């Protein structure tokens, strides 16, 4: 699934958050969106998902303007994974996953055997099938994030948008979740996630989109885009980028901190 953002602008009242943003994400692969707090990463996602409906410009899915789609049709194209949270009621894990099959079924229907099979396959894919009958509020944060990924898979879309999927997770779960996300892109999913860690982008991203204040967008491979001056410009932090294992991976070190030791 390709996603083309064309002259997309959005303002909260007088405050212009996105101003004529343009970029195109090609099918397959993991794209990381980087940018300082408040630069408009979430707003961009909300526009693509049409949660903020009154944007100007266009968002094209495989060449079709997403504004032409109904809420239900759009849900068949893009799945959204929010940061994990506790819902008001204690649903079973399988019930949480089944929720995303709603776009596929009739208005007055609930999910049937076919949807249940899709949901179980999705849980198996993320390694959570044994948790199907457990209460969602009783499992750990990392497990919840995996369940939400399973829910996105059960939505049967080719494009998945994740809002900082690792922000509430411990280190081990961060790696496990990102590794799963990377595998999914190899199976043909197009995944876009926002992140605050340049190192994550170096390790996992096929492409990065950097949103800079003033709505300048940099788009390319991580090695092309993420540079020492770029990090300084976005986050106002001096870093040194180190190449490891014959440039298989790069890591950022905040060098000013070394002199403070």
């Amino acid at each position, binding site marked *: 699934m390709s996603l083309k953002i064309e002259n997309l602008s959005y303002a909260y009242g007088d405050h212009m958050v996105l101003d004529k943003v343009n970029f195109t994400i090609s099918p397959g692969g993991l794209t990381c969106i980087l940018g300082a707090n408040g630069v408009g990463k979430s707003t961009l996602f909300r526009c693509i998902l049409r949660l903020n409906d009154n944007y100007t410009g266009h968002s094209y899915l495989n060449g079709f303007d997403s504004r032409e789609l109904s809420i239900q049709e759009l849900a068949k194209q893009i799945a959204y994974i929010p940061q994990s949270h506790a819902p008001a*009621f204690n649903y079973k894990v399988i*019930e949480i996953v089944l929720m995303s099959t709603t*776009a596929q079924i009739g208005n007055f229907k609930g999910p049937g055997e076919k949807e249940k099979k899709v949901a179980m396959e999705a849980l198996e894919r993320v390694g959570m099938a044994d948790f199907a009958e457990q209460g969602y509020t009783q499992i750990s944060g990392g497990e919840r994030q995996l369940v939400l990924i399973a829910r996105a898979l059960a939505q049967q879309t080719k494009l998945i948008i994740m809002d900082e999927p690792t922000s509430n997770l411990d280190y081990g779960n961060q790696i496990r979740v990102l590794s799963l996300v990377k595998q999914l892109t190899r199976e043909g999913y197009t995944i876009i996630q926002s992140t605050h860690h340049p190192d994550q982008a170096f390790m996992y991203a096929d492409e990065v989109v950097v949103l800079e204040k003033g709505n300048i967008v940099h788009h390319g491979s991580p090695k092309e885009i993420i540079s020492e001056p770029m990090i300084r410009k976005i986050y106002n932090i001096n870093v040194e980028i180190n190449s490891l294992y014959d440039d298989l991976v790069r890591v950022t070190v905040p060098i000013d901190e070394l002199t403070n030791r």
Partner: protein
Amino acid sequence: MNEKIQTSKIYFDSVIVGLTLILAVGFIISFMLGKYPIAPAELFSILASNVLPIDQTWTDQQAVILYHVRMPRIILSVLVGCCLSAAGAAYQGIFRNPLVSSDIVGASSGAAFGAALAILMAIGNLGISILAFVFSIGAVMAVGFLSKKVKTNPVLGLVLAGIMVGSLFNSATSFLKLVADPNEQLPAITYWLMGSFSGAKLEDIRLAIIPMAAGLIPLFLLRWKINILTMGDDEARTMGVDTKKTRAIIIVAATLVTAASIAVSGMIGWIGLVIPHLSRMLVGSDYRRLMPVSMLMGASFLLIVDNVSRLTTTSEIPIGILTSFIGAPFFFYLISREGEKF
């Protein structure tokens, strides 16, 4: 309770069959109970005589009591129990808050004010129903609007807005009582506010059945969608649910059945809060199971409580008082037992 058992189809089917049996048995037994007992044989003869040529073995008085006193009352208590429980479950889902019921979101106090106003203006039973609904939906909308002003804690915001709007309408109702004619209207309003089925008439059923059906059917059909709305608007929309439309339909449906119930039975509190919780303990949170179980359980519960209300004392206790006496302590027991789930 073992979670695997809770979601199995056999378990759910047995719960439904069990609750239906309790309701059916309770329904039949209720016809025989009362100051003028009707024996089982007489009950079936009276009913069968409608279609079969049977010699009359019962007194005319018994037939009158059966058709004009007990039948309307029994049917009405079943319908109202079903409606208030279904509405409570729906409000809890829509407002994403397990502490909500028609009392908290203002539906009850709004309906009470509307009905009291109608009694004061003496515009008849249909007038009571219409004004009850109009003020009920107005109160719910006011609570929904005001609760959004408390941005930091939506659960708290809703409860606070509910208390505020509720007390506003309660004061307005008190004002109506103050200006009401103390010989005719005041006792009518006061007794009606206590909640009772003692004056139930067949006409009440005819009046209430259409709005009740019009509300219960969408609540039942859209019960899967309520699950998704409890995840919040953003998530629900990205999963393909038209949140504005669906929420509006469910709120109108829940308020319609609440107002229709209150218009014919007066204020009957607590049932909309307690029954969905009991049902949740029995079958879990999924509204596919929760909604039908709440409906059946609420119907049986109010039928049984109304029997207690009309049988225990000679000058019967209004059922609204009884449901509070049972509901409030029971609810305390629920939260202290299941506290961690809230």
